[in-house]
């Protein structure tokens, strides 16, 4: 009990030793903050999965149609017709040669650009509308039915109509992503207005602020954390809607690439696409979290 030896940083990071915060606690079951990261197990999981992937193809346990081999060279099946390049080789060739004459980075950038544009449009429209709904009864009345009834409609359901209306170009894709972001941003902005502690608004008025000043200096900054959470959510949702949006007419983008590859049963490209989407989605999320800490340090401290 009197053990004052500090565990190494690595051990704490891996979650095999208690960290400074948890080590003194005797009650850990039920105290989520006292549960170690267990990152050793994460590392083990990832390693085991990679090994399994390598092993099943090495010993030909899985039909490459269902899951592509990690390394084609390791893949001496008796039926050479079914031999595949392997995900690693394929990835290299995607990076170097591209897919359907479009470099991989361009597919990625096209997709990311679409998501950013969609979220941006959604925010530009949704934030003022959400504010209006939180501040004004006419705006609330006008927008309420739209929000309540159109919101539950998944963007994918609108694809047939969107193709008819906007065609197959960027406009259609941006519109779908815009719709996905719009309601999230609108509701976030509206919640942001509602979350203002009324005493802050009262204080501002008592200090002589006018309505526009209250909006600018009190409501807006107060709503920023919610708006940011909205941005983060809509990034995630738009990233999820992207594949649907790129279904419209396959040209560029990670989603399109996967859809085309699927048609050719190029499971390896599909899997690369999935991994790419996962990694990019994860990266976006992490960036947004970092940005939030940096931009809105006062979050949750009102």
């Amino acid at each position, binding site marked *: 009990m009197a053990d004052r030896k500090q565990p190494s940083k690595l051990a704490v990071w891996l979650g095999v030793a208690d960290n400074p915060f948890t080590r003194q606690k005797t009650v850990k079951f039920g105290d989520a903050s006292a549960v170690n990261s267990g990152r050793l197990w994460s590392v083990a999981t990832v390693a085991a999965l990679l090994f399994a992937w390598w092993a099943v193809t090495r010993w030909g346990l899985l039909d490459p149609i269902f899951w592509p081999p990690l390394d084609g060279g390791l893949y001496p099946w008796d039926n050479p017709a079914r031999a595949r390049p392997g995900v690693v080789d394929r990835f290299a060739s995607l990076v170097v040669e591209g897919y359907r004459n479009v470099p991989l980075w361009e597919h990625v950038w096209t997709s990311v650009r679409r998501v950013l544009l969609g979220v941006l449009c959604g925010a530009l429209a949704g934030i003022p509308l959400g504010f209006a709904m939180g501040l004004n009864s006419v705006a609330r009345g006008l927008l309420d039915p739209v929000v309540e009834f159109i919101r539950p409609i998944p963007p994918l359901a609108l694809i047939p109509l969107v193709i*008819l209306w906007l065609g*197959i*170009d960027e406009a259609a894709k941006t519109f779908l992503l815009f719709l996905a972001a719009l309601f999230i941003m609108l509701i976030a902005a509206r919640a942001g207005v509602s979350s203002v502690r009324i005493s802050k608004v009262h204080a501002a008025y008592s200090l002589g602020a006018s309505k526009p000043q209250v909006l600018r200096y009190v409501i807006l900054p107060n709503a920023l954390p919610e708006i940011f959470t909205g941005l983060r959510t809509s990034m995630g949702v738009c990233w999820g809607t992207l594949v649907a949006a790129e279904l419209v*007419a396959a040209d560029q983008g990670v989603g399109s690439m996967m859809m085309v590859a699927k*048609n050719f049963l190029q499971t390896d490209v599909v899997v690369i696409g999935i991994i790419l989407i996962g990694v990019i989605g994860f990266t976006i999320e992490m960036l947004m979290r970092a940005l939030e800490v940096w931009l809105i340090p006062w979050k949750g401290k009102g």
Partner: protein
Amino acid sequence: LDKITVAYFLEWPTPNLVAQAEKTYDEALGVKVEWRAFGNGNEMSQAMASGDVHIAYSQGLVPWVVAVSNGLPLRLVGIAAAYAEADNCVVHADAGITQANAAELEGKRVATPIGNVTHYKLLRTLEHLGVDASKIDLVQMNPPDAVVALARGDVTMACAFGGPLQRLKEFGSVLMTAAEQEAIGIRVFDVVSVTEQFARDHPALVRKFMQVTDQANATYAAAPDRFNETIAVAAGMELAAALEFLETSTFPSVEEQLSAAWLGSSVQAFIREVAKFFAKHGQLDRALDSYEFAIDTSFLKATGP
């Protein structure tokens, strides 16, 4: 107008892919020609309705009929390809179903791209074989998905066109050969369609498009071996598979298209038949009395050799 958009299919090796790859179209038309791949002909119709796509090369006849019956301003300006062999239904090898016991399909699940030529062929075939189509569990699947479904045994029969059909044949055999189908009057061909407005505003471009296509067909016919490789790559197919398609399909020349066998009269009659058939099956709300108004052979006629 600095760019026109043409809809086409992947895994659909037509001779004009050479012209597409070599940018012959761009040169001849004097505008940038953008080729966009679609999953089925109905999606081409929708995109044309929005005005984003001007020309559909190799749109199935049925999607065209569906579109025109529903009032979409599409114009049929030519025949792209006839490919009875490249569009068919494959019964899973384990099902043991042949024409003789085709009625056993009732109650089973069948995949087809709905509202397409394939769908039409399927329904006509079933009718011919005395199978009650309404008792079949018909699911909408685009060809590539149908391959997986049949391979896994999720469906008893799968219908598809193009490259995926060849893959389907790995897992079973066709219910009825193309020859047998033609014998009972089922024709399978794709058309070249353009939006009415495009035809009106840019007749010269349409004419040149048909011209380049015709030339590409002719050039290919003269020396197929020289181009097979290019076509297979452009279609995203293995050489052998592309060859099979090319060898069994015909790409009628302008003269042939204008003859009685095609747009002279027989296509018009066939179109009415298709429309009535779908109307009878309840897929179309109504068939038009005539589709002549939507067929415009003036561009073909203007295509001098």
